[in-house]
């Protein structure tokens, strides 16, 4: 299916958010996630199914003021 990850188009076979994060190499990384504008907690990623055109955010700590 085709989805947007951090604003960029991506074609993936991942069925869940957890699978997607793992496929992108984020297993064990310090990240947080949102799907279609809503926060998805880490424990909920495995049961969060992905659908065509979903918009995923994967964020990490960064410098800030």
């Amino acid at each position, binding site marked *: 299916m085709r989805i947007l990850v951090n604003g960029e188009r991506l074609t993936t076979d991942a069925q869940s958010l957890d699978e997607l994060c793992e496929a992108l*190499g984020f297993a064990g990384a310090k990240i947080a996630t949102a799907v279609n504008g809503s926060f998805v907690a880490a424990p909920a990623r495995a049961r969060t199914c992905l659908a065509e055109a979903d918009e995923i955010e994967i964020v*990490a700590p960064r410098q*800030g003021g």
Partner: protein
Amino acid sequence: MAMLQLYGSEISSRLLLGTAGYASPDLLRHAVLASGAEIVTVSLRRESARTKTGQGFWALIEELGCRVLPNTAGCHTAKEAIATAQMARELFGTTWIKLEVIANDDTLQPDVFGLVEAATELSADGFDVLPYTTEDLSVAERLVAAGCEVLMPWGSPIGSARGLANKTALQTLRSYFPETPLIVDAGIGAPSHAAEAMEMGYDAVLLNTAVAKAGDPVKMAEGFARAVEAGRLAFEAGLLEPRDMASPSTPVAGTPFFKIDTVS
């Protein structure tokens, strides 16, 4: 010097420092150390699967051992700010959030309507909200009613280095909320601006650009640390009221050549 209290925690430094815009991670590390800041602000940004930039940054912050205050910088709606705050709480393991809802990209002024909306929802959800707001008293009242125990009015627009643009309103805010911790956040360009806020009785200052973009950020961080301390000490000591006419500091009594009497 009295300790700063924020949401039930005692904080050792009244200077809160941002972590953005330093020329190198090493410069950031040394500037934070020189500032003596116990609280540093951080953000959340999209993580690249290729570079994983955020992972290295987090290792540096952990090494510094500071308490982090995540922000919602760049959010333009309450919905975005709420989702960002929720991600930050999980990522950083803190209920503290520097809540920013931006109204205008040129002035970066707070959207106070979205701010109150987000602060209400986040406070109800167990967050300790530190809202980046204007000096407007009615907005401040709404934020306090929403559950905010700390307020962070701007001095002037973020990164502008213009200092305290509306001192009268900032003083009014201070007088109106004598018990609420008030932090001047944004617009501080020089240590004198920070000292001025502290002399007015503000509880702390939060700044970033003035240190990060200084010719020597480490030296500037130390300069700000001293200014904040000096301003606080002056406030606690009690400042002299300004007056219109001079008042001699040297005793008048016993001044030589002063005519008290005449012999004839």
